[in-house]
């Protein structure tokens, strides 16, 4: 039951992040619709950002899952575990945003 709740919460957060990057990817994709070449560039940019969002969701979901599990094992370490979770999530999100930057470079 705990794992189900944790998984649902993390799936929601992951979907939120997916939404952030997908909306941006959609905005990027709508930009380069002028010609075939820039259409392909748009697809490339959108794919880059989309895969980045996918990877971010997977990575941060795993981080959150193990963090919540270990808090359940040892509730008195919740503060320290939570801090480390946030730091690691920011690092993984950084890599996903590298993919978004590559997508932006592909569009422009």
């Amino acid at each position, binding site marked *: 039951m705990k794992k189900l709740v944790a998984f649902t919460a993390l799936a929601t957060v992951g979907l939120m992040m997916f939404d*952030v*990057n997908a*909306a*941006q990817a959609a*905005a990027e994709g709508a*930009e380069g619709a002028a010609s075939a070449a820039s259409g392909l560039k748009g697809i490339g940019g959108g794919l880059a950002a989309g895969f980045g969002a996918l990877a971010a969701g997977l990575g941060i979901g795993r981080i959150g899952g193990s963090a919540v599990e270990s808090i359940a094992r040892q509730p008195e370490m919740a503060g320290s575990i939570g801090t480390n979770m*946030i*730091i690691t999530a*920011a*690092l993984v*999100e*950084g890599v996903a*945003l*590298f993919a*978004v*930057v590559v997508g*932006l470079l592909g569009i422009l």
Partner: protein
Amino acid sequence: MIPLLASNNPIHHILDKPISGTEHITLLGKPALTMHMASLVIAAIVSFIILKIAAKRIAIGHESQGTDRYLTKGRIPQIIEVITLYLRDTVIRPVLGHDTDKFLPYLLSVFFFILTCNILGMVPFADIQTIVGKVSTSSEIEGWAVFGGTATSNLAVTAGLAIVSFFVIQMHAFKSLGVGGWAHHLTGGAPLYLLPIMLPIEFMGMFIKPAALAIRLFANMVAGHTMLAVLTMFGMMAFSATQNWLLTGSVEAISTIAAVCISFLELFVAFLQAFIFMFLTTVFIGQMSHHGEHEEHAEAAH
């Protein structure tokens, strides 16, 4: 006024623009005075003033105050004191050990400066100036503004910060390890037959790690503001598609709620990215020093 809420290009209001009225001043063909430069200077001045006042209130006062001299007066100095103590004792000291006091001024400056830049970027200064300009002078100039925008959403600014971090890390490496120790650190403790692979990778890693710092901060800021711009665009997109105020109003209401929620996320990201930049610089500095002590600590832990 309504077009201010949305241009048809979400990236337009994030890109750097020359300060209105100085478009003719150019350096090597590009505008020389841009809005991000002005925001940078203003963020530096604001953070300097706030931290100076806070430092005076936090410092132990004169003996004539009695025991009151250890108190910190005022809410903002108290917040800054709590943040600084947390960063120093829980984040930096476990990593750097006895080098903490040497690097604390630089690391805390980087943290508070990036934090100020990020938070000032959340305030829509550029739009306020454009609205005030339009209302007061009733001119038709589009997007008149002097300062505004997030300074750290400019790759040049974050690259500058990363270059300074790079120099701090390398100078500490040379001072504490010496040239021979630095070269030995590049091998990463690998056996000799792996050196042809290890050396180029470690050498590139030396430059790529600060570059990743710069790109991470830049991409986080640009992504957040692009997201906000796209959400704000939905209302005007609905209006230009349906010309129906009721539908536009309902779309606008939902997109405003979403924009407010994303703004909360962006405030969190502002703090987090400043912290991550500082923390990773700390970790890279720590990697460049006491290698022998790490093995001692590991044995003591067991």
